[in-house]
């Protein structure tokens, strides 16, 4: 157990170091993510002004006020920082195509475990750089959070759903990457997934804005747990039994995709060693 922990720690530390090699690029990429916020705020500003007949504080959309809408958007930024996995799926597919995946067959190390740890390291590196701008951002935009900080219980549930969002995002994307064992090129498939994910995860707008039957469809998909669900929890829109049910569903999805990725890996390796190599 201790040996394992040391192994994990080493993997974590080394991938972290690797992540910090290109400091300039990394810092720039981290900070650039904050730019769309401004345009997004102005977009909702204009939308609410036209809905409210010239006064943005008058209008509501499906129960959302302008402030709540912006607060929701800012919160999805946070949840996406946990659940998005840039380059994970395409990286796995590339390793399969290049044959780099052999490394995991020859050495006594598990690919999925290894990638999960390196992704954790990526995230830690990202948060350490993004923490300050995030703090500044939330300080500047505190006026949009009309209800102030949520209660500790809600905050804890929010934290838990963020962790689960990270795991779900990882296993979902890893599964997509592992399709590379069957189709060598997965770029267009990934593009479609990204596009769908952008809308159906709630990154673009709160999912309860969707009319029937679309909202029911979205309810059946795991994507909403990547952005919408944690943000809605923070805003206190999901409470009590509904909250418990949501968290359980999120855990179920994580387990399901972890199993999917595992099965795909096992089958993929079998196929790889049978046909390719």
């Amino acid at each position, binding site marked *: 157990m201790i*040996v394992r922990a*040391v*192994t994990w720690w*080493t*993997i974590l530390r*080394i991938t972290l*170091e*690797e992540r910090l*090699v*290109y400091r300039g690029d990394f810092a720039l990429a981290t900070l650039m993510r904050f730019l769309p916020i401004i345009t997004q705020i102005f977009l909702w500003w204009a939308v609410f002004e036209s809905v409210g007949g010239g006064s943005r504080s008058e209008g509501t959309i499906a129960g959302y006020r302008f402030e709540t809408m912006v607060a929701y958007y800012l919160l999805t930024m946070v949840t996406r920082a946990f659940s998005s996995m840039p380059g994970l799926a395409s990286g796995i597919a590339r390793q399969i195509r290049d*044959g*780099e995946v*052999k*490394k995991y*067959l*020859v*050495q*006594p*190390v598990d690919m999925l475990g290894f990638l999960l740890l390196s992704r954790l390291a990526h995230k830690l590196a990202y948060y350490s750089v993004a923490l300050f701008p995030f703090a500044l951002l939330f300080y500047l935009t505190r006026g949009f959070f009309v209800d102030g900080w949520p209660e500790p219980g809600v905050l804890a549930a929010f934290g838990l759903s963020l962790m689960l969002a990270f795991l779900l995002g990882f296993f979902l994307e890893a599964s997509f990457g592992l399709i590379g064992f*069957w*189709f060598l090129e997965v770029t267009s498939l990934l593009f479609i997934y990204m596009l769908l994910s952008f809308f159906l995860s709630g990154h673009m707008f709160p999912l309860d804005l969707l009319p029937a039957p679309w909202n029911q469809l979205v309810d059946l998909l795991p994507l909403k747990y990547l952005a919408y669900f944690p943000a809605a929890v923070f805003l206190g829109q999901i409470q009590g039994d509904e909250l418990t049910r949501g968290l359980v569903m999120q855990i179920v999805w994580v387990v399901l995709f972890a199993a999917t990725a595992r099965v795909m890996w096992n089958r993929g390796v079998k196929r*790889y*060693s*049978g*046909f*390719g*190599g």
Partner: protein
Amino acid sequence: MAIIELRELAKSFRVYQKQEGLLASLRGLFRRRYRYVQAVRGIDLEVEQGEFVAFLGPNGAGKTTTLKLLSGVIHPTSGSARVLGYVPWKRENAYRRRFALVMGQKNQLWWDLPAQESFRLHQQIYRLAPDVFRRTRDELAEMLGVGSLMSQPVRELSLGERMKMELIAALLHSPEVLFLDEPTIGLDVVAQHRIQQFLKHYQVERQVTILLTSHYMKDVAALCRRVVIIARGGVQYDGSLDGIRDAFSGSKIVTLQLSETERLDGWQAFGEVVEVQPPRVKLRIVRGEVPRVLASILATREVEDVAVEDPPLEEALAEIFTRVGQPIPTDEANSVEVAELAKGIA
């Protein structure tokens, strides 16, 4: 007991036959033609502990495929293999801790980090005790003369230095069996020599079992007493390096130093003229004929000096390769047409 044992080991690959032209490409979207290529067709081989064996053969002969089979990256179509008592393609961790595979064309180190970070990762992956790890690492680095480079990012190293680091990474866990796939490819003479010396020394000292593929005869001559020639997916020769000449090369090269007055023409009557460089003539003469031909030359021509040599090893090999290494005709390759829907490529 043999440490590596191959029985009737065979492996065929399915390759997509892309037809020429746009129309054919479109057709290929719906109907794919596959061909089965037998990369390895029934190899039998036994290697004892502590042997250093070279795999020689033309490109595409099945050398790398065999190494991949033995390291468990791929599983065979038929036949069996055991290394250290394990079936490689079961990929048991116990086996994976006891061998290493180094591919000269593949990079296993972390590109952007110093090699020592990759080494540390290997320490963890292979669960090496810190003191053992440090000792092995420093020993290997010293033997290869790269101790001072371990803290430099791998991308800044030269090809030779990188290869040395690859070797260190592969040897940290003191594997008992080592598979080397063209470890000196693309290296300059000095780096090549250094790696040869290192491998020789290391192998003698540790008594590890090594299978090596290489296209450099110097590697092979310096390192391996036993040579296995693989061509057309099978073992064509198994024996000593010198034995190759005896087995395959049917001729000798005779160099004649002529006296100044001797004619330079008419030599083709005695054998194949390889080179005429006055006052020297080089002839290729069938092995058994050498004494008779030489006697008749000395009787009729004025010769000042004679040297009889074996043709260069490369030449003997090239001869074998061309003799047995002709591309496999399609009908022999069990060409099978398979039509599948595009979505069913899987």
